């Protein structure tokens, strides 16, 4: 099996779903495609020696340890999301969505998975750009599934803001390419290859690379939801159907962070200074600070989760910026943990929306009494996302902050700690309002075993990752953090 096979799986399953005549078949290809993709990617990552990069297509595609983590993340969250959506969107009865819309949904879902995979697997910075722009185009239709006014508005903002952002990133890539040409580093066809640029990064012009990094940070930062470019994010995440929100929040944001990290590595070596580290820490803390008040006073639980994504992407960026083994390892682990925890919470929000027919926090009361299963998982999920031990996010946040202290950025760490405490308080207030107390009217409840088991699986993952990270994954994370530190093995 090669990288090309891996990339072709979502394309094939998307195509099969489009041509299948009945709802059952569409659903089958939808779930089966995601299942095969996840299985193959796990098999592929742990079969091939992920510590040594694998190349394809005259080095245009590459999978190193860093990319491997993101591949696992995309396919696993993709699988969870498709399982959930198979129960959530493929309902029968009077609320059923017409099959033509479902076909479109499944097609764009798999296309979205494909573009994200291509983004993390491309060694060529230009192809990575094309793929990241592709993720916007593919997911715009996923944000707007129901053609409601508010979803159209959200999708339009998402499309326009992210496309502008990404155009700026292209500007940055051209600058990198220019400095590679000016440094006469080799064959022009290969000068956008990240692995080549990494080897010769010292010959890149520091001034141009600094400028390029700023453009790329603004461009991909828009897509990653870093403040102050995050304004599309709460709209898109709250209007998208819950399984899509999980995917957008859990992995799409992470993929853009991945893009920034690739450029950060080059810039740090080229400039030989902490220029890009400083910027990452600054924008990271700014994101946490901007998200904090919105989390405290939020009235809509899906927007609450969306702002929490801004916060966590900020934390990951800050961790990468702090640098050092601790900070970077923490940031990568944080991205993984956030993906699982946040997608779990968005799945919960799907349940909530279905049972209470409102996105307002004050519309949901007494969840623990009326539905102990959902209420319990939601409450635990909220505790996990706000960084309480023994859950996995606590471990990675702790590691990021230790990285900050090790890098002697005491002010930054103090501000972060303060903000995290505030955010924790905000989350706890919202969660206790929603889960505790009593409720007068009985919520509608239809049991869907599939959706419930996704929730169960999610909470187990979040819980276990707090204690125990499987050894292969651990060594993958360690070699990925060595790549980000710039230690070329």
């Amino acid at each position: 099996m090669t990288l090309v096979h891996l990339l072709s799986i979502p394309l094939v399953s998307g195509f099969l779903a489009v041509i299948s005549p009945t709802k059952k078949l569409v659903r089958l290809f939808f779930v089966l495609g995601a299942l095969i993709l996840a299985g193959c990617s796990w098999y592929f990552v742990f079969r091939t020696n992920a510590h040594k990069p694998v190349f394809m297509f005259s080095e245009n595609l590459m999978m190193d340890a860093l990319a491997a983590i993101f591949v696992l993340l995309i396919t696993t969250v993709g699988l969870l999301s498709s399982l959930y959506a198979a129960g959530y969107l493929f309902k029968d009865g009077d609320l059923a969505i017409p099959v033509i819309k479902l076909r479109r949904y499944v097609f764009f879902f798999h296309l979205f998975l494909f573009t994200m995979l291509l983004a993390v697997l491309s060694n060529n910075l230009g192809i990575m750009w094309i793929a990241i722009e592709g993720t916007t185009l593919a997911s715009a239709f996923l944000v707007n599934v129901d053609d409601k006014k508010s979803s159209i508005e959200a999708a339009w903002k998402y499309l326009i803001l992210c496309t502008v952002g990404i155009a700026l990133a292209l500007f940055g890539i051209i600058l990198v390419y220019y400095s590679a040409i000016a440094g006469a580093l080799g064959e022009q066809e290969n000068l956008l290859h990240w692995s080549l640029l990494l080897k010769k990064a010292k010959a890149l012009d520091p001034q141009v690379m600094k400028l390029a990094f700023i453009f790329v940070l603004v461009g991909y930062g828009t897509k990653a939801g870093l403040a102050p470019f995050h304004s599309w994010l709460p709209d898109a995440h709250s209007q998208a159907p819950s399984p899509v929100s999980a995917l957008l929040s859990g992995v799409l944001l992470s993929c853009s962070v991945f893009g920034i990290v690739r450029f950060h590595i080059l810039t740090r070596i080229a400039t030989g200074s902490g220029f890009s580290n400083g910027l990452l820490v600054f924008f990271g803390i700014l994101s946490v600070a901007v998200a904090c008040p919105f989390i405290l006073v939020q009235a809509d639980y899906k927007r609450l989760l969306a702002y929490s994504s801004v916060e966590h992407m900020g934390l990951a960026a800050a961790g990468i910026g702090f640098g050092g083994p601790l900070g970077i390892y923490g940031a990568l682990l944080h991205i993984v943990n956030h993906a699982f925890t946040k997608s779990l919470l968005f799945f919960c929000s799907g349940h909530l929306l279905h049972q209470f027919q409102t996105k307002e926090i004050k519309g949901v009361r007494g969840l623990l009494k009326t539905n102990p299963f959902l209420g319990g998982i939601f409450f635990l999920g909220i505790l996990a996302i706000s960084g309480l031990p023994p859950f996995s996010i606590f471990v990675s946040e702790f590691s990021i902050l230790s990285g900050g202290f090790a890098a002697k950025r005491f002010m930054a760490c103090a501000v972060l700690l303060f903000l995290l405490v505030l955010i924790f308080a905000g989350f706890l207030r919202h969660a206790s309002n929603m889960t505790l107390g009593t409720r007068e009217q009985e919520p509608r409840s239809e049991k869907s075993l599939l959706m419930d088991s996704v929730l169960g699986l999610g909470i187990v993952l979040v819980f276990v990752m707090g204690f125990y990270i499987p050894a292969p994954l651990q060594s993958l994370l360690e070699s990925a953090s060595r790549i980000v530190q710039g230690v070329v093995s």
Partner: protein
Amino acid sequence: MEQEWILSIIHLTSMAFLVTSFALLVSPQLFSCIRFYAIHSFLLAVITLSTAFYNHVYHLIISAVLTLVLKTIVIPQIFFRMIRQLGMRKEVETYINIPLSLLFSTLLVFISFYGVGNMKALDLLLSKESVSIAVSTLFLGMFMMTTRKKALTQVLGLLLIENGVFLMGVTTTFGMPLLVEIGIFFDVLVGAIIMGVFVFKIRGAFEGIDVDKLTMLKG
């Protein structure tokens, strides 16, 4: 001698490119906006072609042809058809009036010329002012996106930004590798089509394509 000719053509078209950006920004009619965009892209194609011959990088010819076909013919045609189908009023509506936006955009151009002029690393380039023009176009496109009310003119602003980035690519690096270049063209085309689809959706849901009605989502 011939080389000098080509170089002066590049200089001349770059200037015309900047002037067209201004024209696009201040023209009060939607139809003329799109026509100016077509001219803008045509000039970009001319610059690309001349650069290809001047520097003997012949894969740029493909890029020039693609610019010519997609951006001067296909995308403007899509727009013209869309306006006809939408049956919308043809005046451009702005938040700030046209003389004032002209003033602002002059300021933006001044800033970008000043900023790029100070970049020592770009001194190797033959036509440093092309970079300034590319950056100005980028700024003008952003300015256009923020001050226009119609969804369609926002898309035009976006395409203006993209043309600026392309000019930058052509003049500094003689274009990206061909594979990447074709991918970018594909993305631009698909992006324009998808945005077109959404313009129709906005019209259907909001009875008009004024983006200042898109204010439901806050906080």
